[in-house]
């Protein structure tokens, strides 16, 4: 899932042609956020991007302070009010125990969001480090690490996540770790490519001629230049991780109920086909979040 969408998505970015998207090569470090540049970014903030930021902001707010958004208890319901369709009192309806589904979604957000963040952090740190070392040290180290990444890529990432989570135990945090492990290869790949690109650029040669040592080249030139692509990948992976963790929760490899992770809510909801809102409400929230995150990632790629 991850591999191709990253390696190819760059060219799929809509209007600004691929050439301009990639055109901010190594030189972009020099461009500071001047007034004209800020205006450029604002001009490119299309409604869809603004909407995406708004969705993500709401989701983050839900995960930080769920009680501000709902007065219902996510775990205790009014049994008499079971299976109520969505209404003004219960925006997303109620489930078989009369619990407010909106409250369950809002209270489940923190777990879904933090586990996706954990997954991205693992992929970013481990994969970034592997890619950095491979690209920067080169030689035999690069060959060995590149094989390692090939091996990780050869195992279907969802299968890898399932194997890791079954070895660690069925908990949401372990599902997050497993998702992170399955994302290591993609980060390593992108980081290595960025490092190689920057290292071969003229300004790094110039820095070396001027007497910069390897550490200075690394911290002053290579990392700042690579951070852009890696950040954009991290945002994309955040969306993907939400989907993968939801998939693991759906299969029952996360925390059991009464936890209310989004994937788990959908999984439990599917057992009540006569109350479709139990599936659709958490599903729409999940899709809207991932769609927004992907839109922001694409926007990051085209903004320079």
């Amino acid at each position, binding site marked *: 899932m991850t591999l*191709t969408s990253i390696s190819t998505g760059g060219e799929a970015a809509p209007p600004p042609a691929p050439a301009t998207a990639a055109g901010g090569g190594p030189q972009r470090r020099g461009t500071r956020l001047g007034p004209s540049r800020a205006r450029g970014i604002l001009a490119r903030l299309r409604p869809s991007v603004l909407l995406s930021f708004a969705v993500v902001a709401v989701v983050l707010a839900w995960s930080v302070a769920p009680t501000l958004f709902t007065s219902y208890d996510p775990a205790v319901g009014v049994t008499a009010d079971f299976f109520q369709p969505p209404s003004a009192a219960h925006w997303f309806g109620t489930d078989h125990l009369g619990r407010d589904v909106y409250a369950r979604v809002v209270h489940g957000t923190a777990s879904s969001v933090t586990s996706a963040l954990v997954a991205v952090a693992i992929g970013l740190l481990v994969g970034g480090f592997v890619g950095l070392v491979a690209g920067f040290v080169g030689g035999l180290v690069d060959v060995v690490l590149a094989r390692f990444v090939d091996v*990780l890529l050869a195992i279907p990432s969802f*299968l890898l996540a399932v194997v890791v989570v079954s070895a660690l135990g069925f908990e949401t945090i372990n599902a997050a770790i497993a998702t992170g492990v399955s994302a290591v290869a993609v980060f390593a790949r992108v980081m290595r490519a960025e490092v190689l690109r920057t290292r071969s650029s003229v300004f790094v040669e110039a820095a070396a001629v001027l007497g910069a040592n390897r550490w200075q080249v690394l911290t002053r030139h290579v990392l700042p230049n690579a951070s852009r692509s890696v950040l954009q990948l991290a945002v994309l992976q955040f969306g993907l991780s939400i989907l993968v963790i939801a998939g693991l929760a759906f*299969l029952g490899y996360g925390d059991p109920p009464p936890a209310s992770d989004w994937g788990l809510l959908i999984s439990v909801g599917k057992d009540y086909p006569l109350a479709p809102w139990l599936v659709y409400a958490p599903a729409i929230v999940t899709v809207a979040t991932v769609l927004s995150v992907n839109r922001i990632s694409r926007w990051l790629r085209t903004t320079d």
Partner: protein
Amino acid sequence: MSSTTNRSAARRAYGRYAVRRLAQAVAVVLLAYVFTFLVISVLPGDPVSNVLRDPQNNFSEQEIARIVAYYGLDQPIWVQLVEALSRFVVGDLGVSLRSNLPVSGLLADVLPSTLRLAGAALAVALVLAFAIAFGVRNLPAPLARPLRAFPSLFLSVPNFLIGLVLIQWFSFQLGLFLVIDAESLLATFFAAVALGIPVSAQIAEVLIANLDHEARQEYAAVARSRGLGRARLFTAHLLKPSSLPVVTVVALTVGELLGGSLITETIFGRNGVGNLVQRSVATQDLPVLQAVVALAAVVFVVVNLVADLVYPLLDPRVRLDASPARTKEVSA
């Protein structure tokens, strides 16, 4: 004269490339096996003895001793690894801890179902991707613009959700297929749609990007200036150079087809490899898990190897003798 030497040089270059890719593929499969072995054995917990000592399983002492000896569980881990690897190399995938049957037999039972599903899903994905790409380039702008967002939308939907919605609509409401008859033609088709939609998004993204790129080339401008219509330009000029790279992308999506079948098979109640994985995870049947991962890696590596070897033959723009860097770009 010079053209024949060029050709034989190109053939030699292709031979060298093929041998190198083959060696790489073998190495990756073996290392994938080692990696999975280490993940399973190094992580905490001792599922094997948990399973063997589980009184519900009714293993006799002799059976336990036999299985322990077979897997070398009393040996240090690297000895176990070497033994497992030497069995794997000759095609022995081990014995299931639960059923005490050879894993290869268990896999052979469920593999056809998964291959049918994955094959059908790939077909769905290709049809869908080409349809989207055709629409994006040929429909009037008000229709084409939203169509461009489809791949992105497909990639944002959890694939279990697509399966659930399809079952809800087409099985429960329209009664087109019965969920209990999971292997029937229509049930397989809808399962393939659920699995194929996210895959189609990846193919469509590449296809659309390639088409956009080709449409900006000079030959396309020339063709347009000759008065060629949009649809004709698409079919006669843009389609072929744009769809060749799809071979490589399709090979890369194999991993997702296999991984995604885990969820799709669960939802549609199919008895395939994904279902076997689920059962093995639930019962901690590690030899089965190990074998499935190895098999998946073999399939992925072989398909990508074939794609990489066939691609230079399909696409005359790829020249292997020019520089090794070019081939790398193609296989990447």
